[in-house]
């Protein structure tokens, strides 16, 4: 049944090209977005693995 559905589509072969263009579009937008956000915007998230319990306790006692 589902074979019929796909067979009925005209130009099913352009789908790969569309996927590729979509991906490149997404990729370019993502990079331009990340450049815009700036490096330091992400510092806190990048430090998450280093944010151990000891560090948290330390921070809390300092504050």
């Amino acid at each position: 049944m589902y074979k019929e559905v796909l067979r009925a589509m005209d130009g099913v072969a352009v789908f790969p090209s569309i996927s590729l263009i979509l991906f490149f579009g997404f990729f370019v937008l993502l990079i331009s977005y990340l450049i815009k956000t700036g490096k330091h915007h992400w510092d806190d998230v990048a430090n998450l693995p280093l944010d151990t319990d000891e560090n948290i306790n330390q921070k809390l006692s300092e504050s």
Partner: protein
Amino acid sequence: MSMDTFHYDNKIVRNFGIAAMTFGIIGFIVGLIIALKLIFPDFLGFIPELSYGRLRPLHTNAVIFAFAGNAIFYGVYYSLPRLCKAPMWSPVLSQIHFWGWQLIILSAVLTLPFGITTSKEYAELEWPIDIAITIIWVVFGVNMIMTIMKRREKHLYVAIWFYIATFVTVAVLHLVNSFEVPATLLKSYPIYAGVQDALVQWWYGHNAVAFFLTTPFLGIMYYFIPKAANRPIFSYRLSIVHFWSLIFIYIWAGPHHLLYTSLPGWAQALGTVFSLMLIAPSWGGMLNGLLTLRGAWDKVREDPVLKFLVVGVTAYGMVTFEGPMLSIANVNAIAHYSDYIVGHVHNGALMWNGGLTFAMLYYITPKIYKTKLHSVKLANIHFWFATLGAIFYVIPMYWGGITQSLMWKQFTADGFLQYPNFLETVVQIIPMYALRAFGGALFIVGAIFGVYNILKTAMNGSLVDQEEAQAPALVQTGEESGGHWHRKLEGKPLKFTVLVVISILIGGIVEYMPTALIDSNIPTIESVKPYTPLEIEGRDIYIAEGCNNCHSQMIRPFRSETERYGEYSKAGEFVYDHPHLWGSKRTGPDLHRIGGKYPDSWHLRHMYDPNSTSPGSIMPAYPWMLEKEIDEESIPNRINALRTVGVPYADGYEKLAIRDLRAQAEQITNGLRENGFSSVEGIEITSDKQIIAMIAYLQRLGVDISGTKDPFEGLPSNARMGANIKEN
């Protein structure tokens, strides 16, 4: 601010660590055994359960799913709770996951050596185990997703994205690749045939490498390199680009395993293009890992954890450079089917997966046992054994692979094959096989040092079973202001998971669907007919013995191959092949056109003792095929299952199948007797033995295309059923 107190479960972490080490050592040793069998084919005698074809899938399954699998869970169960500042959601699910996974491994040990296999690479386990894998994988996923939902840290760190991608993609891959129809309790046939089966299999196989051996280990890299070096990842922004482009592109690259095969050209081209693109995210990730160590290289000199991490990530860089290069058609033409690929794989497996696993073991064990590593010196010795072992493994495989491949392709000035006898090209590289076994042995010795060191470390300390931790509860502050959507996305695990699913499905659907659905992709060949019952039995024995581990059934359209093997393989020839048996490695010659090439008696003698027909052959002997009986009883069930997956056996044929089987077996046996082969070395040849089915299958291979003989002609059912089969 109020603080929640909670406990990390270190016991489950330790258990996964023990399992990884135990199955690692076992898997490596099985690898060494099969490496030795290529040098000494009679090593370990003629025990069917220990023959090369049955042990090779045991090795790959042990190292991928038992060693690397347990290592992944070891890393996830340690890092995920710490990144989420929450314990694993359900200790019960953690236990079910742990024991369920170990039982699956046990079931692999109890089936693969006994010839119970689907033959599909890295998915050899039969259907009941496939179901168990699905259940346990879902248990893991639920436990992981719920832990993420109950977290105390708003942002999901990049390592967690890779864990999420691993879970969802492996689930999709496993489900789609495991659509099969059971014939008996331990035998099934995939619903896909030939070209489609090959495409699905390598979509799965390639992405098993991507999402079982790469993405979880990238998550591990993103957590453990910053931890071990005590500095944040080089570029968080790069990790965002790395993640999305890697998971989107990887899924497309599968067809590079099928270049020059009967797969439609456009699918091959897509596979190549995306494989080349893959170098960008792979190297982005690799550099992100290595550059994290800038300014900390002095630590690498002293810390074995960092040594293993650095060499592991470097090996990842080498392998992900090689991968795209090997996907270029004319490079692939040389490397494919050769030992080069075995070297390529082990470069990644030994140093990237093995290295990162041991780095984790050396990092986590002292932490959860609140002690110091027993011996840094011994860990350094382990490091050198592992590195040298990998070098001694990989380089001979590269050398041997290219040497043999060039010999396959060498013509004389007169235009004849210079090495028409395949065996000549095998004998040439046996010294390389010996060096490889030496390298593997070095790696194992190193691993044993490592395990000893870890055990001593554990014995020196005491396990902090439930590690107390504190963190403020997650306060829902509503939407973050500002337009930083990815940052917001990192706080929304479900939305994130949905986007991951979409990213990985696009490639699979676009690439696979047209091949499955458009007739013009697989031109049918009128004269290609289903297998006879005796040939089905022979084919199933071929699968059980794992012949496809060393023999391909796919002749590429090169003059060097058509001269050696015969006409190149056409897509339409495989329409009844459930599963496909194209293979991926030629330790022995291709068999697609073996039918009719030699007399039945040649196959009889060759299977009993390959050296009797091919002196110097490293093929194992299969003397038990002359004594083991054909499984007649399940033939009707197998015919029914094959009909269900689309092979056009007429209704009711299952009732006539055994008669056909016996009649064809008698014909072959009588033929052998007439030529003086009523017995071999005192073993009487009778028509109920496996060897007869094997001969029937081998003689059928690749002959249909000539259209000279109807395979059902002369069988009792032919008069009544033959017409129906043709009509279907």
